[in-house]
């Protein structure tokens, strides 16, 4: 093994390590476009759409004592249509249902839409689409023996003009406290 071989071996080892270091900290392009993003993300309980009737005395008497609920309810969870318009054009729609096999769990909205940076008019609508004509159970409703849970309203709308810097994300989410859609932005990009 000559001195030249040793030097070449050391050079090769350093080159391999250098390549490892570069690959370990390499620039990865994740968003090549300078456009901004509208992110829709929320979770809420869908409204319960059900028909309830009061049980008669004879019906209640026929039931075991522990099953004598005054109301018999049948129904389903509401469906919603999410429609988004950016700059008054390019509408995007999606039907949203509750989670789970029977769609009776919480519904989740998670969608990202690219939008231009600068002055942007966004219009987000979230409407119940069931045409059954049956009123949903309201909070505090105890017709079926259970208190009504806090559900998302049948109609939500957010129409807002924003100044959005390039590569900023505007998050639209549902605020249970305000019972309305709200926007959240990075502190540095909100203007």
């Amino acid at each position, binding site marked *: *093994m000559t001195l030249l071989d040793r030097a070449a071996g050391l050079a090769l080892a*350093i080159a391999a390590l250098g390549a*490892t270091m570069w*690959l370990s900290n390499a620039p*990865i392009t*994740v968003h090549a476009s300078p456009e901004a993003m509208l992110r829709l993300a929320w979770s809420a309980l869908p409204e319960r759409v059900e028909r309830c009737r009061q049980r008669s005395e004879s019906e209640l008497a026929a039931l075991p004592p522990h099953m004598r609920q005054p109301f018999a309810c049948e129904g389903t969870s509401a469906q919603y249509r999410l429609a988004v318009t950016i700059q008054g054009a390019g509408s995007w729609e999606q039907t949203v249902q509750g*989670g789970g096999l029977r769609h009776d769990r919480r519904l989740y909205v998670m969608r990202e839409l690219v939008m231009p940076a600068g002055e942007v008019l966004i219009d987000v609508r979230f409407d119940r689409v069931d045409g059954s004509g049956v009123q949903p159970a309201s909070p505090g409703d105890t017709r079926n023996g259970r208190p009504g849970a806090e559900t998302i309203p049948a109609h939500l709308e957010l129409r807002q003009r924003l100044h959005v810097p390039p590569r900023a994300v505007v*998050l639209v989410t549902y605020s249970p406290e305000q019972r309305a859609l709200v926007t*959240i932005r990075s502190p540095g990009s909100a203007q």
Partner: protein
Amino acid sequence: MIAVIRPGGRFTDNLDGAAAAVRAPPAPMAIAAPRLERLALRCLSIADTIANRLYQQRFNPLYQSGTIVVALYVVLLVTGLWLLLFYRIGAPWESVARLTADPWTGNWVRGIHRYASDLAVAATALHAIRMFAQGRSWGPRTLAWISGSILLLLIFACGWTGYVMVWDTFGYHLAREGARLLDVLPVLSEPTSRAFTGEQPLPTAFFFLNLFAHIGIPLAMALLFWLHIRRVARPRMLPPKPLTWTIVALLAAAAILVPLPISPKADPLTLPEQVRGDLFFAFWLPAVRHGVAVAWVTALGLAAVLLAVPAFARRWRTRSAPSTVDESLCTGCVQCSLDCPYGAITMMERAGPAPLVARVDPALCVSCGICAGSCAPMGVGPPGRTGRDQMARARPFMSDPGRRAGEVVVIACEHGAAAHQAALHGAGGTVYAVGCAGSVHTSVIELMLRGGAGGVLILACPPRDCWHREGPRWLVERVYHAREAELQARVDRARVRIDYAGPGERARALEAVRAFAADLRALGPPADAGAASDPSCALTPAEVER
């Protein structure tokens, strides 16, 4: 005895071809895979030759890929435990940033930790390629291949959690894209991506779970590693010390000279154009950009191919018959069970002259034939390759009328120097190819010398690259250190030499033959050349036993 002469014209004692069982009809994979295997072997051979020249065979890092991963694992454990002292799940980025700002207590350790994990990925991939190219991925080695593949996946998972721990822009990106991949699985009721929308700060519980996974996965890896090496006897866990410390020193030098930066803190509400990331662990990110389905199909496809290699290899390879024991010859000396590199031979009690008898577990035997070289009475070995079979094959080889008196017989491993048969012949050696130099019975060496050879040069594969793990080691022990079945004391050791050459080391093999031939010329003719040149004087097994 079936002597196989391959198209190249050389003898071989590996009966893979002769023992070919019924083969399944070729599938597209079974056609492409052997080509891929040959290509990988050729590339490895070139790389090995260069590395042998620059670092010597003993320190060739390409031969040590498996043990290097273990050494790096230890480095990762030590540095990881140190870094853990400074990590705060309540303020992940801030704690790492504080660590980064302090060059004495932390950042260089962090650099070593990261570069060691990168090298571990590279070394693992290299190890897998070597095992695939050398056909060590199926049959009794299936368990090692499958467990190794899972270990590779766990390394990726561990790296993923490690980068998420930092919670910088790269960590956020990995977490986000990983969540998008998970969300297509029908098992989760709530999309995990929602956690990373920026709606709420991530709870501390997330970072606690992530830290738990980052520590738990390496523990699972240790368990899997035990499975990985379970079927090998005397596994070498670490590279030679000089190589280990050189790697550690290089990692430390790199970490100190080029301090590792930290990316900005994760902000879910901005879209960075670029992030500085680790391509060893984030190479899959571009696939996600083409869609989650594309990423899943690619990942599952690659994992399926990796895990299916043993099943496919079965279709294009033929498994040689495992070793058998002639119980009438077995003396119960336990040597074969000590020498077997795969722990496939155990000793059982029996009633008879010898209290013990060797038993081969066919499920563990890879038919390397090393037991054949370990058995003095020649009672064990793969069919057609026991000591007796080797003697029967060597006799006609030595009595060939074309033999030149006093010539150098080169016993060459067919995975190594036997590839240069014509060149070795030109340099004055006659090649006698064997499946593994470690399987050669020492009586064959004696027979060749008594049959008229001026000297016997055994060109084995480099010890760290023996396809059967311990062939060169036992060969040296048997020839020079009286390990059972040792080369008899009556054999002139000056006429026997062991050297090592990989398949790409033609010049080294030729140099070894020329140097040995020159030394033999200086020695003069053998003392009993007249008698020994008569092949009928060659040893019989009975003589060997005496």
